[in-house]
């Protein structure tokens, strides 16, 4: 059992390891002094786009106005203008010509119909966390950000908030370990996809001296990223100790050293938009 207090080793590894798979897959004959864990960072991708900033909104308004003024009339608008012209002429000439167009649907009627239909349509609310009152266990919170799964796990003699992790068994790949970790915490029928075979990050710590032996120096946790395909998790959640949090809120739950390593591979949306 891995110990809780983590003494951070001075070594520092890159976030994306390009190591070939063979290294982890074949069972090593000599006993390892580091225990290996595979952890999964399950992400729910954002469902709506982020709200525009002030400058972006002003720019959109300006561009919209320029485009409107530069644009030509569409078929519907031409038809509407012609019919208005016809009506006006008919009124002025006091119903001189017979009215052939009585049964024809006017463009204005169509517009009224569409307007009514639009008023009947109700869009889904963008801010549902206001409804949920900041309950961090639901998936409907913060629809424009990434949410990731945190579970409470017992390590050593402490209960800690972590990304779900499992110990690596010889003979399987680390990716399988991560998928197994996901399955233990969320059930078997999870529609989540791990995209690549390479881990995203690594967290290494040594056990406290009391537990440390020659064979068991410490543990290495390899992080994999998985994306949630469907948001229906009602039948999947068995254990109650789970949370869905954004990157900023991770600091409330994770230990500082662990958090530092996890933050290295988490892409947060306002940063991505800078491209």
């Amino acid at each position, binding site marked *: 059992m891995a110990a809780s207090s983590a003494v951070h080793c001075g070594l520092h590894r890159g976030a*994306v*390891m*390009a190591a070939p798979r063979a290294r982890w897959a074949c069972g090593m004959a000599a006993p390892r002094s580091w225990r290996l864990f595979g952890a999964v960072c399950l992400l729910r*991708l*954002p*469902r*709506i*786009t982020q709200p525009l900033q002030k400058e972006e909104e002003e720019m959109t308004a300006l561009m919209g106005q320029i485009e409107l003024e530069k644009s030509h009339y569409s078929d519907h608008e031409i038809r509407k203008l012609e019919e208005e012209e016809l009506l006006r002429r008919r009124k002025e000439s006091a119903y001189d010509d017979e009215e052939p167009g009585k049964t024809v649907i006017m463009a204005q009627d169509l517009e009224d*119909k569409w307007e009514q239909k639009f008023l009947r349509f109700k869009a889904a609310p963008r801010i549902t966390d206001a409804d949920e009152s900041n309950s961090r266990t639901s998936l409907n919170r913060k629809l424009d950000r*990434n949410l990731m799964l945190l579970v409470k796990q017992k390590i050593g003699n402490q209960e800690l908030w972590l990304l779900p992790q499992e110990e690596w068994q010889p003979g399987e790949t680390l990716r399988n370990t991560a998928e197994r970790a996901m399955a233990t915490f969320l059930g078997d029928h999870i529609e989540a996809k791990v*995209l*690549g*075979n*390479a881990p995203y990050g690594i967290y290494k710590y040594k056990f406290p001296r009391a537990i440390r032996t020659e064979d068991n120096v410490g543990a290495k946790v390899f992080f994999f*990223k998985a*994306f949630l395909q469907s948001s229906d998790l009602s039948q999947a959640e068995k254990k109650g100790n789970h949370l869905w949090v954004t990157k900023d809120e991770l600091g409330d739950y994770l230990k500082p050293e662990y958090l530092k390593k996890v933050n290295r591979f988490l*892409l947060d*949306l306002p940063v*991505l*938009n800078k*491209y």
Partner: protein
Amino acid sequence: MSAALPKVLCLKKGVLLKQVFALSRAATPRESHLCAAGDALLSCHRHYRSHPAHGIGRFKYLLPKEVPKKKKDRVQMKEINAGTDYEYGDINIQMTSYDMCLVEHFAQYVHKLCNRLSIRVNESYAMPTKTEEVLFLEGRGSKPQLDAVLTTHQRVIQISHLSSTFAPILLEIIQSNQPEGVHLLVKEHTEADFKSRLKARPELEELKAQMN
């Protein structure tokens, strides 16, 4: 002053030409900018055929003859997928939406992102627009009344030499920045995709069927 120049040019030759032009540049700042500006090649006074210096600047006849390019459809290149480097071959990123501006902007964004991340973009093209008419049935059994016209736009970006360690990161960035209403599909490039861009030729197919 410009009337005197042709006579000067005919009489003197070679090295003196440049001197004459230097003089003319200083003397006539206003007229004949072309003569005043450059060297003998830019001169608007070309020698007549009988002049010994006629055709003095020709060089195109010295270059090797180029074979004219045949306008045939190029066969696509296909790369091996899992080589020793774990690289993907040609990958198509297809973006579909009803809103043309949105999908075009998103395609531009993905293209620029790939440029920025040094991923080679082979092609970036648009598939033809599909138009669908939607007829609403007002009540049971009555004639379809209201209709709407929906246009589906598709943009495709083809990239290659994507390493398998970088592919998940790229996919994550694209997925996170996907706007609402745009379908994203990332798949490998196949012959069928290539053929779907070409027009069908029914006569050719008939003849082929007759042959077989």
